[in-house]
């Protein structure tokens, strides 16, 4: 049988959900447009969180970026802003994500490879040189040491004379999905959750325009989950953060408006659109009914989307431009608030300037040429999309119940439940590709010789240069003050109060990321997962 004949026998979404031959009113019995949909901007926000959606304001075009050194990354930011990008998104390298300085032994070979290396406030100052933090919103993909990097950011804002109340942006700070999927954790779950709660509390008091967390399904999906698992585990993580903040003594409407989300935009077009619509509806109901939120802003699920890195192919890389365009369109039709489009060369390396420009232009074409921005939720009322949305909601609610029964998300993680569900889904998908039930153009079908592409070369001297700067900083700073601030931080970590003011003091004294994380490691310990196949 030919490749295409095998694939056409099975009509399932990329997540393996069977699709009926036709969708008509019969598939929507019990569906009530007023209850299930309402109008855009109104509860349960299925159709979007704003009345006019993109007619009023386009999504933020925010390309995730960082490499080599803070200096080179800063140059890329200036370039992207000059090209019409409307927000910044910082990628940190692996040592930074893991709380190690650039001169640590474990950083060998990794400095500047997957993002920008930021070991101290000095690096953060360089990263944002010439970028007014009062005007540009900045998203930072940082999790386990998020509080430290956020403190550095707030310190740079102070230096620029920008009031914290005016600073707007996001730290990812979603540690639960690290244990579930991406695995960039440092400390055990409970002290990690305490740090997250510290930032949510601090944000509620001091940075009313900053999102202290971006609850992320992106990495769950990249690890191989289905669309339903991405939706369910992400929102259930959200519930966990809400419960911790409430236990801290915060009122729901004090902090819930600043909770933000981050989803994958994968290749199965309608399944993705249904996922975003179901997410808004589920979150609105959860916040109102489970937590008694009253403020409308608490009920509105705001999200960032990024096209699916795992869908990019090494083979025939130019095809990735097309994949990304389709995925980005799904995110826009699903009502995203901001968007990152992947570059065609990202199966190989961090993107070249030329590749990232095409990725940004893809968004600009959707925004200014396709006409999809002219009316909110243009697919609302489609029999197919509404059925998928309802099914997505039901399947996610079922996962909520199972995780609630286990005692919540941390208990579920400790049992390995979400990890196992994702690994099973990822293996099932790989098997389907292997048997050609699922076709991937250029990989298991329509193969041809690859055209070579030009890749970004990361400066191999980045590590040396960063280590040199760090050595100079350690010699120049007031080491007495550093020691005192780290001692105070350690005592704060041992106690139960909010650690943010102590982190800020340490950062301002130019204590390094590694030194601050070491202080936490001494108090909290480090986390090792049990490896399962």
């Amino acid at each position, binding site marked *: 049988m030919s490749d295409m004949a095998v694939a056409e026998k099975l009509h399932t979404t990329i997540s393996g959900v069977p699709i009926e031959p036709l969708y008509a009113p019969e598939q929507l019995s019990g569906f009530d447009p007023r209850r299930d949909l309402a109008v855009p901007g109104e509860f349960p926000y299925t159709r979007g969180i704003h009345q006019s959606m993109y007619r009023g304001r386009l999504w933020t075009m925010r390309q995730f970026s960082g490499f080599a050194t803070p200096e080179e990354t800063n140059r890329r930011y200036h370039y992207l802003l000059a090209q019409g990008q409307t927000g910044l998104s910082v990628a940190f390298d*692996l*040592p930074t*994500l*893991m709380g*190690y300085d650039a001169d640590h032994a*474990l*950083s*060998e*070979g*990794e400095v500047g*490879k*997957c993002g920008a290396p930021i070991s101290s406030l000095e690096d953060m100052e360089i990263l944002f040189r010439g970028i007014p933090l009062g005007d540009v919103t900045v998203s930072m993909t940082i999790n386990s040491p998020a509080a430290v990097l956020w403190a550095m950011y707030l310190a740079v804002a102070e230096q620029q004379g920008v009031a914290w109340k005016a600073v707007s942006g996001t730290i990812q700070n979603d540690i639960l999905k*690290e244990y579930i999927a*991406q*695995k*960039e*954790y440092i400390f055990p779950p409970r002290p990690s959750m305490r740090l997250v709660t510290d930032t949510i509390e601090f944000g509620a008091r001091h940075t009313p325009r900053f999102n202290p967390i971006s609850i992320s399904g992106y990495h769950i999906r*990249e*690890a*191989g989950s289905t669309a339903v698992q991405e939706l369910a585990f992400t929102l259930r993580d959200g519930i966990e953060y809400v419960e911790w903040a409430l236990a801290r003594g915060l009122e729901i409407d004090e902090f819930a408006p600043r909770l933000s989300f981050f989803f994958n935009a994968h290749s199965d077009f309608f399944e993705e659109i249904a996922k975003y619509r179901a997410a808004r509806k589920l979150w609105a109901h959860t916040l109102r009914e489970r937590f008694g939120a009253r403020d409308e802003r608490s009920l509105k699920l705001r999200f960032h989307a990024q096209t699916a890195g*795992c869908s990019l*192919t*090494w*083979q025939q890389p130019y095809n990735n431009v097309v994949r990304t365009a389709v995925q980005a369109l799904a995110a826009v039709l699903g009502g995203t608030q901001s968007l990152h489009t992947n570059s065609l060369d990202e*199966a*190989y*390396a961090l993107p070249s300037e030329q590749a990232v420009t095409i990725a940004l232009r893809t968004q600009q074409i959707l925004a200014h040429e396709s006409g999809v921005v002219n009316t909110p939720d243009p697919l609302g009322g489609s029999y197919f999309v509404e059925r998928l949305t309802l099914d997505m909601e039901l399947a996610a609610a079922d996962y909520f119940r199972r995780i609630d029964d286990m005692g919540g998300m941390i208990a579920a993680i400790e049992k390995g439940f979400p990890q196992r569900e994702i*690994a099973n889904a*990822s*293996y099932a998908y*790989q098997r389907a590709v*292997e048997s050609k039930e699922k076709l*991937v153009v*250029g*990989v*298991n079908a329509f193969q041809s010789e690859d055209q070579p592409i030009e*890749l970004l070369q*990361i400066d191999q001297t980045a590590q040396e240069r960063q280590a040199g700067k760090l050595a100079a900083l350690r010699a120049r700073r007031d080491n007495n003050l550093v020691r005192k601030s780290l001692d105070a931080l350690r005592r704060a970590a041992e106690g139960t109060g909010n650690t943010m003011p102590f982190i800020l003091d340490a950062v301002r004294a130019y204590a390094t990321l590694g030194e601050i994380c070491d202080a936490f490691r001494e108090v909290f310990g480090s986390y*090792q*997962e*049990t*490896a*399962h*196949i």
Partner: protein
Amino acid sequence: MQPPIRVLVAKPGLDGHDRGAKVIARALRDAGMEVIYTGLRQTPEMIVNAALQEDVQVIGLSILSGAHNAIVPRVMDLLREKDMTDVKVIVGGTVPGEDAEALKQQGVAAVFQPGASLEAIVDFIRKSVVSTGGHNQG
């Protein structure tokens, strides 16, 4: 009957993206091999020690962070130091063509880039272990 081929699947470096390592580990196990998965953040020293203790014939390194040129040569050096050059090393991940050639010159048996089929990897391991007559079975 031939005893099953023993494979150590390892995830070196700081990167936590273990989707590929886990899928490969399962596929090799389903193909009848005995698979030991190291878990995350293994140093070259830890990997080579585990390979020695587990008496494996194959080490599979999964690297997606771009740090392969720092990590793989170190593993190869340690294998030579410990007189374990009969252990086949295969690398999977985002390793550009030029780098893959360089790694092979240093003794890596194969580099599987993104999109490689599970079947191709299983076949390669079977053939390369059979052709050397296996590793000190006992």
